[in-house]
């Protein structure tokens, strides 16, 4: 029964936390750039404002255009619900594993990309097309990472992997490091961060995610934005769950351990967000057609992570 309670708590937590995490990243970046920046809770205000605004829909748009924000948001939300954050004892844990997670993100992307094409503008098409290219390499990279983790831990369930790593008899593995690197690269790409995409850009020819949602406004845009924020949080949760699960509560743990887990999770998110901000500040955006190299690299790292397992086994 507690699993259900924790699950509900997580559902609410990720939804509430997501804008804050994004706001925090922006905040740190602004500070690093020497600006004052908006406060970290600014995204809440933005979203609320958008919700209150009238939504504008082009005449050429179909029902899909209006449904996509909700579907996208729900898919990402669902994905974020199944990644253990503060405890592995959540009710949905056995219902979706890492593969399903990748696919849920794919579902969100599928709808967003379609929505980008629905109005029939050039920019929407550009965004969708590039997004799908990125995904076509990012997804395999993430699956390869899953593969290596499943070889280490014997499972694809994030909760089980976290438990396995917490179990401790693992030591430092080269392949885990490679897998982490792959996941980070994928995370950067999937969230449209520099060097793949610039979330703040409005220079048309360089944007990817923003181009897809270009035609959205009002509550639709709010949903899309919220989904993006949620996705960022999701990846942070994923990285911390799979590679830094320390502090996370396990099934059977009491509320005290869960409280510790929650604190640890918030700390991890803060740390990752800071790291992201620092990284983005230091690096420049890539040309569109170098994405393939970047993500191909991620895919290769994922593959290497798997193969290194045998190397270390053989040694």
């Amino acid at each position, binding site marked *: 029964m507690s699993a259900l309670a924790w699950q509900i708590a997580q559902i609410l937590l990720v939804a509430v936390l997501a804008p804050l995490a994004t706001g925090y990243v922006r905040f740190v970046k602004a500070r690093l750039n020497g600006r004052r920046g908006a406060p970290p809770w600014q995204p809440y205000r933005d979203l609320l404002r*958008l*919700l*209150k*605004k*009238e*939504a504008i*829909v*082009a*005449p050429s748009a*179909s*029902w*899909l255009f209006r449904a996509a924000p*909700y579907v996208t*948001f*729900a898919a990402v*939300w*669902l994905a974020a*619900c199944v990644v253990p954050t503060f405890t592995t004892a959540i009710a949905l844990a*056995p*219902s*979706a*594993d890492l*593969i399903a997670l990748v*696919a849920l993100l794919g579902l969100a992307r*599928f709808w967003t*990309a*379609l929505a*980008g094409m*629905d*109005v*029939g*503008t*050039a920019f*929407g*098409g550009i965004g*969708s*097309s590039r997004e*799908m*290219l990125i*995904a*076509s390499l990012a*997804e*395999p990279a993430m*699956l390869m990472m*899953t*593969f290596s983790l499943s070889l280490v831990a014997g*499972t*694809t*369930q994030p909760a089980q992997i976290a438990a396995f790593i917490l179990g401790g008899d693992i030591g430092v593995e080269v392949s885990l490091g490679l897998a982490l690197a792959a996941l980070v690269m994928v995370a950067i790409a999937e969230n449209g961060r520099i060097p793949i995409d610039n979330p703040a850009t409005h220079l*048309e020819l360089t944007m990817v995610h923003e181009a897809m949602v*270009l035609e959205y406004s*009002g*509550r639709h845009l709010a*949903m899309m934005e919220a989904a993006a924020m949620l996705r960022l949080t999701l990846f942070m949760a994923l990285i911390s769950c799979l590679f830094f699960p320390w502090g996370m509560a396990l099934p059977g743990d009491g509320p005290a351990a869960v409280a510790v887990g929650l604190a640890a999770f918030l700390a991890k998110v803060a740390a990752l967000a800071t790291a992201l901000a620092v990284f983005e500040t230091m690096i420049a955006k890539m040309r569109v057609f170098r*994405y*393939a190299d970047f993500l191909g690299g991620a*895919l290769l790292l994922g*593959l290497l992570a*798997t193969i290194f397992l*045998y190397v270390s086994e053989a040694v």
Partner: protein
Amino acid sequence: MLIAAPLLALPVLALFAVLARRAAWSHAVVYGGAFLAAVALLAGGLDRLGGGGPTALTLPFGLPWLHAHFRVDNLSALFLVIVNIAAAAASVFAVGYGPHLPDQRRVTPFFPLFLFGMNAVLVADDAFMFLVSWEFMSLSSWLLVLSDHTRPETRKAAMVYLTMAVFGTFCLLPAFGLLAGAGGDFTFDAMRMKELAPASAFLVVLLALLGAGSKAGLVPLHAWLPLAHPAAPSHVSALMSGVMTKVALYGLIRILFDLHGEIGWQWGAVLMVVGGVTAVLGVLYAVMQDDLKVLLAYSTVENIGVVVIGLGLALAFKAGGEPALAALALVAGLYHALNHSVFKSLLFLGAGAVMSATGERSLGALGGLLKRLPWTGATFLVGAAAISALPPLNGFVSEWLILQSLFKGPTLPHWAMKFGVPVVGALLALAAALAAACFVRAYGVAFLGRPRTAAAAEADGNAVTLGMRLSLAALAALCVWLGAAPVTMTNALSEVVRPLTGIEVPVSADLGWPWLSPAGPSSGSYSGTILVAMGLLLCGLAVMLVHRLGTRALRVSDAWDCGHAEDIPQTQYTGHSFAQPMRRAFGATVFRARESVDMPEPGDDAPARHVVSMIDPVWDGLYRSLGRLVDFLADQVNRMQFLTVRRYLLMMFATLVIWLLVVAVRQQL
């Protein structure tokens, strides 16, 4: 009875179609009859799948000393189900679709025959009847491809198709010959009993792979598929792509898992690599296509690759002494076969609906159809999502199962497998991701955006009749059902694979019915049912929240498009432009894709052109060179037609003298 009677009814229908070809209502009768027969066969298959041992029947024709053997076991029953789901849907669809064809009289007689051929392959229990049905299936579908015979490209497609089909038969035929041995007992029972010499065993697998692979469309034997499948009328394309390729896989499974005794793990590796390459190449081709049906055909190639990865994995596990994992991989492959038949039929029928409404099948001529064809658009979306392996639809479940079993691959003791499996896994993942790109492109360009031509703008929603809509909706519902509640089907599948792997695999036993947990609950589990429920819940929650917190006001106004919005629909992204990043990233190496801009001199008012050149490595490297070789040799040999009588006499004389010398030499020895 449930199987024999409808099977025999199909040729009768064909005869009726010939006799009543002038009657306007004849097609409705034929397709209606085909529908009933398919439903009966489907019921028969499901019934058999429900339980009981195999039923066998021997009839006094076929090879005289052998007679014709028929048998329905679980594997046949499963494929009967696969075939006849699509067949029933296609028949219903065809009632409304048929009149849109240029010459329906060239379709109705062969459609039931095609169904007959496919079903007969599944129930055949000796090599002769198997091959007769197999060829019959090819033959009838060849005629269906040729129904639009006045177009030269159709004839070329048909030509390549049947030649490849016969090539396949000539591979399977010797494989059966080897399995039967010199004694010539061609019943499958005798083959199961037989021990093969190592060389023969090797050859059998190779030939089976070539024979069934060419029919299924494995790279590099796939070349006919994207030519022939699109050339046929859409309801036939649906069957060819969705179902006939499955019949080919049935043949492969029947030989590799049932008739053949022991197969080395190396063949599993070969199958996996071939499958992986097929999957990636297939989808890469698909993502570049402009013709909707060609795109779908190439996507079939991809999916066959995916299934074959599963089969290869199962072989490797079986040989490696891991029957439980072999069963899992086989279940995964079979489930994907089933799923693909459902959503590929759906997509092809959708393409048919688009064609009947617009008369176009080129992506460049479509656009904005979702508004004009809501039924087709919605169901096609389901199909596109399913084929892109998105949860909670069926395509995802089978890909998930395949990945799960793939992740267990490194438990095999062979180093080649340990290193190879991750690579295949990467190929599979790449294919899946590209498939999503491919179908976002296809759906986005055809159904979304603004109409690119008048034909698309004036798409006639009434052309998609009730029957067509029903058939599309039924298949779409099936996609959802097979995705959301996969357990009933996977349990049936584990019954199917039990005799083939010798072990039962309780795909969902550990956690209860909503979850699939193929290799134990701690190894990975998935629940489509719960995800659907949760997804709907969260979606509803989001909608509720938004509407509570925000306004519901909505205004229809011009598109923003960064201020560049223009009325000309040509400013939209096209299929070609959508594919450009993919073409640059992958096509440059695989297809040697080159882009060049042809910019006229200043003062020249010719339009600038952007030219893309691509080379199909398989077609050019293999088929064209083979064609050239045949041409060259034919030219050389043809000289013998124009010699003088004296030279012909010389040939005769030389033959005589050579044989005399041979005899002289052999007598001395």
